[in-house]
């Protein structure tokens, strides 16, 4: 199979999903009303609630949800062959992610722009809201640990990426100061900043940075993880305008440049896919494809994290209700397109099937490494730059995605710790520095604890929890779809378009969590704390399904009683 054909088929499926299926959902199910007064208009305060251009809002939603996960997940999942990953990404984007993101924005807009967490309490039950908050905390803890390890691995495999990746922070701070303090118009800092970002790659090539093999008993990977979390902790305490805002901005610009570059290179180079459609020689370490495929690729097919973005900031700025389709559905389609090109990079950018099989000799070996290795071959032959330069460029791109997610993730975790301190009246936890240390401590415990249990070099166990991270993410997606489904039942509309994805996603998450239980027990017995973490996830998943059943029975009875009252 030629990669160009796969790209064209995949992009066409995603486009058809947007053009026809989202239109059907918008008109018949969510029944969007152009005259509905959105919260951005009804509650306008020019701070949180501001009617915003839909293209800008789409760009914000897309760049906020697209990070390193739609690259790493497909990069791992192609171990079962390119076809299952391709089908899950395209069908998932069309019928799961699009409806989920679109629905999260719509549900929030119809409820004064409340977040999905609050809506869970209002629409389903207060118990379900508590479940939601626990799942969010676990998700943030895992995302930070996993991305910390992913960046550490990337720095070790591509030392030329170290200087360009850290230079992005300097570029971001410079842009922040120029725009916020010196009020320089945005165009030139953007152009110059982006050019510097790519020009510094040459410097990285000339001066590759490698840390010592051991410092105070800590291997290289562990040193990088400690540095990264120290940075993330400091970054989360800095003013938003100084780092987070400009870093997100240049990251967004880079996402568009990177996507254009990758798809352009695929079209020009037109490589053949060397990986098998369905891998007959899956390594023994790989778990069964069903249900693990559905959690290994979360972002890129469906991800609960998107609901937090959609109902957190996007819904407060939606100008017209009809924009929800463009912003929500097309935003998730953009992430599907990123996952699709990651599949192509991890399956077509290899000289032979033997070379591909050598990389995929163990479960978890692919991921970012496969994306960089394969993508570099495609980009270098398509655009005409050297393989090393292309590899550094793609590593920097992925590291910046993961790094920005870590910045935001640690900051959000700090808020949760501070809120917990406020609710349970523990003043020390309300202190920003203490809360940051607690948040970082949880993540480091996870990253280092896994290695200790498995007997791996310190800090290198983070990727082991990737399926558990996907499971938690899908559980969150299930909760969001549950809220949307209950709302639809209350409105007397068909709920199957959100209910079926909700049941499938939650069941896959539950099945994966159950499978992981046996794996964690086999790997470390009762002392493996991941076993207990996973057990909590299993219990949460069962509670979600029970809450769903209870909410639907209640709403159906209410609807039947209302109908009986009306006929009497």
């Amino acid at each position: 199979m030629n990669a160009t054909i796969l790209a064209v088929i995949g992009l066409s499926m995603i486009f058809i999903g947007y053009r026809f299926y989202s239109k059907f959902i918008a008109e018949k199910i969510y029944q969007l009303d152009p005259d509905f007064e959105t919260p951005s208009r009804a509650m306008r305060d020019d701070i949180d609630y501001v009617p915003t251009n839909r293209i800008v809002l789409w760009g914000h939603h897309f760049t906020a949800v697209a990070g390193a996960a739609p690259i790493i997940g497909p990069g791992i999942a192609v171990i079962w062959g390119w076809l299952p990953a391709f089908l899950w990404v395209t069908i998932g984007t069309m019928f799961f992610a699009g409806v989920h993101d679109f629905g999260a924005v719509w549900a929030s807009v119809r409820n004064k722009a409340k977040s999905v967490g609050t809506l869970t309490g209002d629409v389903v039950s207060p118990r379900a809201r508590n479940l939601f908050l626990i799942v969010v905390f676990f998700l943030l803890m895992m995302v930070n640990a996993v991305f910390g390890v992913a960046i550490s691995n990337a720095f070790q495999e591509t030392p030329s990426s170290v200087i360009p990746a850290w230079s992005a922070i300097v570029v971001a701070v410079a842009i922040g100061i120029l725009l916020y303090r010196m009020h320089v118009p945005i165009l030139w800092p953007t152009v110059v900043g982006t050019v510097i970002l790519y020009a510094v790659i040459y410097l990285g090539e000339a001066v590759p940075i490698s840390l010592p093999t051991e410092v105070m008993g800590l291997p290289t990977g562990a040193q990088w993880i400690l540095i990264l979390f120290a940075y993330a902790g400091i970054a989360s305490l800095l003013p938003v305008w100084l780092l987070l805002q400009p870093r997100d901005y240049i990251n967004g610009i880079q996402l568009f440049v990177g996507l254009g570059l990758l798809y352009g290179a695929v079209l020009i180079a037109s490589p053949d896919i060397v990986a098998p459609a369905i891998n007959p020689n899956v390594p023994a370490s790989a778990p069964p494809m069903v249900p693990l495929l559905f959690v290994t690729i979360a972002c890129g097919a469906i991800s609960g994290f998107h609901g937090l973005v959609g109902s957190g900031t996007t819904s407060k700025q939606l100008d017209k209700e009809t924009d929800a389709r463009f912003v929500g559905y097309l935003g998730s389609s953009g992430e599907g397109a990123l996952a699709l090109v990651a599949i192509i990079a991890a399956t077509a950018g290899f000289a032979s099937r033997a070379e591909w099989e050598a990389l995929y000799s163990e479960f978890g070996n692919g991921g970012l490494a496969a994306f960089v290795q394969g993508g570099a071959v495609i980009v270098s032959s398509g655009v005409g730059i050297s393989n090393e330069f292309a590899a550094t460029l793609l590593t920097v791109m992925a590291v910046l995605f993961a790094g920005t997610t870590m910045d935001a993730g640690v900051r959000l975790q700090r808020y949760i710790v501070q809120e917990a301190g406020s609710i349970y009246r523990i003043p020390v936890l309300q202190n920003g520095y203490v809360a940051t240390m607690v948040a970082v401590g949880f993540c480091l415990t996870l990253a280092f604890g896994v290695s200790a249990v498995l007997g791996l070099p310190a800090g290198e166990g983070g990727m082991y929890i990737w399926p558990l991270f996907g499971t938690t993410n899908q559980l969150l997606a299930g909760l969001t779809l549950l809220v949307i489904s209950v709302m639809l039942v209350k409105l007397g509309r068909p709920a199957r378009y959100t209910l079926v994805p909700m049941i499938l996603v939650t069941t896959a998450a539950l099945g994966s969590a159950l499978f992981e239980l046996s794996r964690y027990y086999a790997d470390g017995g009762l002392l493996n704390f991941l076993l207990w973490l996973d057990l909590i996830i299993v219990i949460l998943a069962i509670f979600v399904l029970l809450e769903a059943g209870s909410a639907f029975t209640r709403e159906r009875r209410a609807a039947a009683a209302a109908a009986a009252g009306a006929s009497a």
Partner: protein
Amino acid sequence: MARNAGRLARLKTLLEEFYVTPYRGALARARRDEDDIFMLFVFAELMGVPNPAAYYTLELQPLLLERFHEWHRRQGLEHSPLDGFRCC
């Protein structure tokens, strides 16, 4: 030429919106927090908190009285804490 200038202006507007949109609320809240601390400096002496800068902040009080009501509500005080100034 004019068409290109129009396009460039549109691009600038889009980029500015793209830059500001995700953090508009966070920045406004941070700015408000700074303003709240400044209000505390200005009115601290009147509330019995010694303020070495009171001599300099005294003349600012009339200018900030309009914002006083919202400020004390944000600090969790239902009614004005000042005996001499009852805004509510």
